[in-house]
């Protein structure tokens, strides 16, 4: 079932799927099309790298259907300046002006540098980019990103590729409650249940890569994540019932056995 009028709108563009996937880590890039079909994704992320002339490989673009929206990232950037440089190179590919800002100095946890991310966002928004900043979940930073014109904010659930789920749940919930632009939980989502939990909480979308690409059967896992994201969204829209410490009988406790 598809809920009416529940499309995600980002920068005026209607996005039917609230699941965004990455294109990295596939053992065979030919799987990507089937994964996108199973996940019903509209948006896919890509990275930009130097061509290795000694080991030429087929372009990733050959494996991504033309109707998908590309969201290039600035992975590899260690500063705002480097992120801006990569963003401009990505734009020069002629695949649109959407950019995921990823500025990372920390190689152990791959945690993003919010300060450099804010600087890059400010520059790129002014240059007409639609900016999706990947960030550590911090409300003050999220507010600054919105002030700079970010199209969405993308707080991490756990370190990239860790599959540890919503370790930052409370901080993400605060951002969801306080921030006006779409909140996309990016990184750390390892299981469909993690994705469903984030969506139940009110996240607008999920971005994940490793959990699908590194699973035993990426196409089946893509389907599982699609279902989880839809279930979580439907639950959020339905309004979850309240929790209590004590029991509350579901069956009438009429006293004929007393």
């Amino acid at each position, binding site marked *: 079932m598809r809920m009416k009028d529940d499309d995600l709108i980002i920068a005026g563009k209607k996005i039917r799927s609230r699941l965004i996937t*990455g*294109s*990295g*880590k*596939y053992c065979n*890039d030919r799987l*990507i099309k089937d994964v996108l079909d199973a996940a019903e994704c509209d948006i896919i*992320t*890509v*990275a*930009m*790298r*130097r*061509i*290795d*002339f000694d080991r*030429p*490989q087929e*372009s*990733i*673009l050959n494996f991504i259907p033309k109707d998908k929206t*590309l969201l*290039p*990232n600035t*992975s590899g950037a260690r500063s705002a300046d480097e992120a801006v*440089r990569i963003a*401009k*190179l*990505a734009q*020069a*590919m*002629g*695949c649109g002006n959407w950019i995921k800002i990823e500025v990372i100095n920390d190689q152990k946890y791959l945690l993003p540098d919010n300060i450099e991310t804010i600087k890059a966002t400010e520059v790129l928004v002014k240059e007409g980019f639609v900016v999706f900043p990947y960030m550590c979940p911090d409300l003050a930073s999220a507010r600054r990103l919105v002030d700079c014109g970010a199209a969405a904010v993308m707080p991490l659930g756990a370190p*990239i*590729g860790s599959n540890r789920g919503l370790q930052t749940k409370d901080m993400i919930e605060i951002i969801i409650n306080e921030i006006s632009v779409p909140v996309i939980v990016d*990184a750390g989502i390892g299981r469909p249940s993690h994705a469903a939990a984030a969506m139940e909480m009110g996240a607008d979308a999920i*971005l*994940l*890569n*490793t959990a699908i690409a590194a699973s035993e059967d990426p196409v089946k896992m893509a389907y599982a994540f699609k279902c989880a994201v839809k279930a979580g969204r439907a639950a959020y829209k339905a309004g979850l019932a309240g929790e209590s410490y004590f029991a509350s009988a579901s069956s009438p406790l009429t006293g004929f056995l007393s």
Partner: protein
Amino acid sequence: MSISVMLNGKQTVLEKTETIGDLLREKGLEHNKVVVEVNRNIIKQHQFEQFTIKNGDKVEVLRFVGGG
């Protein structure tokens, strides 16, 4: 006359002066699937055939790869 350039971070000798279009053809790369930067300036695709690489240029040829 051969020229020496820094191509994707490696010192590389090109046998003759050539355009970006020549270089991409030599490497078997499609124009619309790469982006080229020379001395930190992005060269637009429609300029590939006219833009001549000079001795000492720093040339970067990049493309999209899988990423999250």
